[in-house]
């Protein structure tokens, strides 16, 4: 009787230790779902930005491009979430962690895209056809996204995005012209010369 009781205690203790080991650093499906919900939230914001930009052709093109990036990252995130779920189900913790990192990376890139920062590999993603340029988006806008540092207003010397200012920041276009910095209603700053968005250097 005593042995039976002892073995029961040992069994419970073993289960506790095993659970603790599993819990240490193991991927939680709820955490993955949490990330995916935030990632889907970027899709909501991207769609709003497109609607908000309906009045301005150039802003609309950029909003569509941002949305294309966000939607691509949502696809990547959804695939990563599936991988997390499969890995957890099969008990492959290393694979679950790797997939979770992919999911987190997709969320990061999508959130950056909403701020106007395009992913570093944007050009190659476009070239490989993984990100499809939406209809109506000109090559010029794509080049701007690839070549120019489109940054959030708050990180560009305190430019007020609501003031719609033209402020010289001493940057130059590829042709050597001085470029103005234009902050649109979405808070994106784009370098422009004579009203045209241009690739520039110097920011």
């Amino acid at each position, binding site marked *: 009787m005593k042995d039976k009781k002892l073995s029961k205690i040992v069994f419970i203790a073993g289960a506790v230790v095993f659970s603790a080991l599993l819990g240490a650093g193991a991927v939680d499906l709820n955490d993955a779902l949490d990330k995916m919900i935030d990632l*889907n939230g970027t899709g909501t914001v991207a769609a709003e930005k497109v609607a908000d930009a309906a009045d301005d052709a150039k802003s609309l093109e950029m909003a569509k491009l941002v949305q294309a990036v966000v939607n691509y990252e949502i696809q990547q995130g959804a695939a990563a979430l599936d991988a997390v779920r499969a890995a957890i189900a099969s008990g492959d913790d290393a694979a679950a962690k790797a997939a979770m990192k992919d999911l987190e990376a997709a969320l990061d890139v999508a959130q950056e895209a909403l701020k106007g920062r395009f992913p570093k590999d944007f050009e190659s993603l476009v070239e490989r056809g993984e990100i499809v340029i939406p209809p109506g988006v000109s090559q010029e806008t794509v080049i701007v996204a690839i070549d120019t540092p489109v940054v959030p207003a708050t990180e560009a010397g305190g430019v007020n995005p609501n003031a719609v200012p033209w402020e010289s920041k001493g940057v130059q276009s590829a042709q050597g012209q001085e470029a103005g910095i234009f902050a649109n209603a979405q808070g994106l700053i784009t370098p422009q010369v004579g009203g045209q968005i241009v690739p520039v250097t110097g920011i």
Partner: protein
Amino acid sequence: MKKKSWIVSGLLGVLMAFSVGTVQGRDADSVLGAVDEAKNAVAQARAAIKKGNDQSVNLSVSEDSPYLNSVVSVVKQGSENWKLALAALEKAEECEAKLLSSSVKDKNLELYAKANARLAVARVSVVEVSLAYVEAMYNGKTEKLKVLEEAMGDAVEAANRMQATFDLLN
């Protein structure tokens, strides 16, 4: 010739600032911040709809209008998503009340609150675009309608994706 007019009542009010504002006091990325954001979004949509109602704004679209089907579809989707937004916000607020009244951290409840809040915002986004569509139609800005129709499709798709992820919680 028999002509029937379709009346869309009280759906104008997008003239007011409509975008979801920054959440005051609570971090927008936190659970309670997400609930605040949802409350804010719903409140603004409610105000926009009320404004349209108060101004007795009616949009008449004749039966032979090329926009008739789109208007009916957009308004119907806006209406459906408005109900879904309110239901999601109600659940988010229920969770918020439980979280605030408990001293014990409940990760599942937090996730459920956040998911409902994000879902409410996604549904409100559809309502927002439908209001913008009606406003453009009312003001005769037909050149905007194509973009807004596309945006409507995007918003619905985004809301459906959110719903699909939400369903994984249950």
